[in-house]
């Protein structure tokens, strides 16, 4: 019988290499492979759709400003979180997020269901000067969002990039018609890449998120994004025990 000693590994480079690769492969198989194999990790729930061009640019600003360093977007299935933030987050709700914004650091509150909780006006005021509405807040001021013109020249390219990784933005008539079936005509038009700029401007005009109709600001995009967070799934139409069975 060969007596195995740690020393044999330490003094034999070839053996160390093989053993290291073995350890990493096993860990990789166990941790990564199931994500591709296990069925039903992403819940089959109605309502989840890709972001409109404006919301998507708002999301890009959210990432640019580093909001994710203090805010998570992941309500865990605990009672205290459910009471404060609302229904726990579903995997399906971030299936079109690339990269997802789940996060694990909460200096500020979770934002997974912040959509509709405050008025647009509140968001604008809060982003410009957080302490003017929440005195104990430690959030920095973001006044430039109101002054910066939103750069949407490359929105088409951004959407094409997301389409390449599986987000159903449409480029041609066939894809557009598929979206009409899945998301309805109005939404499908907004998800159509050739129309991206027109639908972005139309969404700003219809909602005037930042209260200043004179130009399309970065604030318009960010508020549009915040207001849609967590609002796509109607939980009153889903039985809670159905979601249990996805785990």
């Amino acid at each position, binding site marked *: 019988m060969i007596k195995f000693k740690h*020393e044999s590994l330490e*003094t034999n480079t070839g053996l160390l290499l093989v053993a290291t690769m073995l350890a990493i492969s096993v860990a990789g198989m*166990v941790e990564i*492979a*199931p994500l591709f*194999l*296990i*069925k039903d990790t992403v819940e089959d729930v109605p309502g989840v759709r890709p972001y409109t061009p404006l919301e998507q640019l708002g999301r890009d600003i959210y990432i640019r400003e580093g909001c994710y360093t203090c805010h998570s977007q992941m309500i*865990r*299935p*605990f*009672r205290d979180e*459910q*009471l*404060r933030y*609302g229904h*726990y987050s579903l995997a399906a709700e971030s299936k079109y997020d690339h990269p997802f914004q789940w996060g694990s650091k909460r200096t500020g509150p979770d934002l997974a269901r912040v959509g*509709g*909780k*405050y*008025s*647009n*006006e*509140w968001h604008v*005021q809060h982003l410009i000067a957080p302490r*003017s*509405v*929440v*005195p104990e807040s430690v959030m920095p001021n973001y006044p430039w969002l109101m002054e910066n013109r939103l750069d949407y020249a490359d929105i088409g390219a951004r959407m094409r990039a997301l389409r390449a990784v599986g987000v159903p933005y449409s480029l041609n008539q066939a894809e557009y018609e598929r979206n009409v079936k899945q998301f309805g005509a109005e939404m499908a038009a907004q998800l159509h890449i050739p129309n991206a700029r027109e639908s972005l401007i139309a969404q700003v005009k219809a909602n005037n998120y930042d*209260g200043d109709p004179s130009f399309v600001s970065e604030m318009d995009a960010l508020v549009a994004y915040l207001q849609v967070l967590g609002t796509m799934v109607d939980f*009153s139409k889903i*039985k*809670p*025990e159905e*979601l*249990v*069975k*996805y*785990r």
Partner: protein
Amino acid sequence: MAEQHVKPQGPQTTGHVWDGDLQEYNNPLPQWWLYGFYVTILFALVYWIVYPAWPLGEGFTTGLNSITYVNSEGKEETWHWNTRAKLLKETQAAAAQQKPWFDRIAQASYQQIVQDPELMGFVNSAGRALFNDNCAGCHQIGGAGKIGHYPNLADDNWIYGGSFEKIRETIVNGRQGYMPPFAEALSRDQVEALAHYVLSLSGEPHDARLAAEGDKLFHSHTGACYYCHGSDAKGRQDIGAANLTDRIWVWANVPGARDMPAKVAAVRQVILGGLNRGIMPAWGGRLNEEQIKVLTVYVHQLGGGQ
């Protein structure tokens, strides 16, 4: 003198010598540490058996542990342990604990709740938690509000009405305040006169001559202010037109202005630009019926409910 522990020999080495003089100390882990490590391995083995752990093709080992909860048909259902099932069970247990209270809230009329000290104790604790989570972001802790942005809920002045029914309506459906802008309809002088008149209604410093002019304008078809604010300027709660005579300022920050020109400017700004804000989100979809009732009574008793 401090006692010195001197080891009889130097530490053991692995026995190897590299490059003529490089040696490696051999310091084994303390025994308790080593056995502690073995215990964690043992713990993992037990954990694998009891809880969902190992992936198996398209599924995974679900573990021996299970959780029983009540499904939406009211029947008991058992599923392997997971955090969602655990949450569902805990939520149902907590709801069962709170049920007697919420049942009493649901059955009692608003008047009965207010007169029942026990129920009011519940309203004050549950209502405060709900208020701080959902309302305080705008209306601030205690309902003090933010002048120029969010109405004060702790006074006895109500834009849309302070009865239980009206407060409930506001919470469930939200509100959307609106006043048309007068920048184009009125001249600069007319707006100035109106601002002085509005200030005079609350006993603020004003120019009497301009206020008299504004008074006429207010009640004329040109200014048409009385359409919404009423000929007595006391407002109309059914459309959310503010009472201008009660010295309470919601939109124009008159109390915060130093002198008469600043106060006039604050009022002028509202008349010129109108209001297309004052939007309160609807809570009907976020809170359930009982929670809204608790919140209604809580907000009602914050200030002077009507």
